[in-house]
């Protein structure tokens, strides 16, 4: 298994976003106060990573897990007026 570290930020301010719904291959975690959450994923697999916030554009990516620790940055744009 490998560690997939997802850090969620506001795309404009670069501030980390806590309490964001984050998903990797169907497993759901919430980002901590540092905007980060860590998934255990199979090494060598490509996983679908999603971040969802009620006020930001949805973020979805295919992430190949090619090392024992993979770091992903999800930068979210504002979606509401």
């Amino acid at each position, binding site marked *: 298994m490998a560690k997939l570290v997802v850090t969620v930020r506001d*795309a*404009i301010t670069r501030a980390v976003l806590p309490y964001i719904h984050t998903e990797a291959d169907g497993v759901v975690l919430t980002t901590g106060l540092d905007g980060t959450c860590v998934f255990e994923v199979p090494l060598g697999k490509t996983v*679908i990573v*999603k971040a*969802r916030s009620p*006020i930001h*554009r*949805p973020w*979805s990516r295919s992430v190949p897990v090619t090392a024992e620790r993979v770091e992903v940055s999800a930068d979210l*744009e*504002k*979606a*509401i*007026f």
Partner: protein
Amino acid sequence: MKAIIASPFIFPPTQLSYALADELEKVIRGFGWTVVRLHGPQNLRLFFSYVLAAHPDAVLIAYLGHASATAFMGEEFAGLGILAVDNVNDARERVIVGMPACLSARVLGPSSVKAGAKAFVGSVEEMYAQWNEPERNYLADWFDYTLTFYRSLVGSLTAGKSVQESVEKAVNDYRARCTYYMDLYKSKLETWPNSDFYYMACRQNRDYVVGFIR
């Protein structure tokens, strides 16, 4: 007939609503109307008040941008907003639409109609933008269902229908078009990775839009 389109360009996602306003301008002109456009930084109260005074024959005010419960903000984030509860008297006898715009139907809507606007259409909740994602151009869908509202409204007014009839039909047409896209997104939940979010966004854009008629 004449319309005023106010399309600020400050803070995301107004870069998208500004592009939507470009399309709206074409739609309205397509009905033979004259359009007075307030572009980006022109969306200050001073300019907006001047345009209202200079064009008393503009029957429709369309605002696409950031708003609060009490104001269309325009580019005045540190100010009063271009149309707010303290200057709604300036928009008497107009049909006012805040779409897409957040929250404006909470206070600004009823205040406008009470002050003499013929009608106000907006949302009592936040409104969402949609983007062009790899699996689907949700942006085009958002343009389509929003323009469905305006096309219906302007078409009915052009045909001489009453404001009440025009607004009610436009809201109904808009909701039906939103529902069409919601059904589409729902059917693709397993294959379109962002369809869950846009289903929610489309539902919120549909369910909280209300109209007030004098």
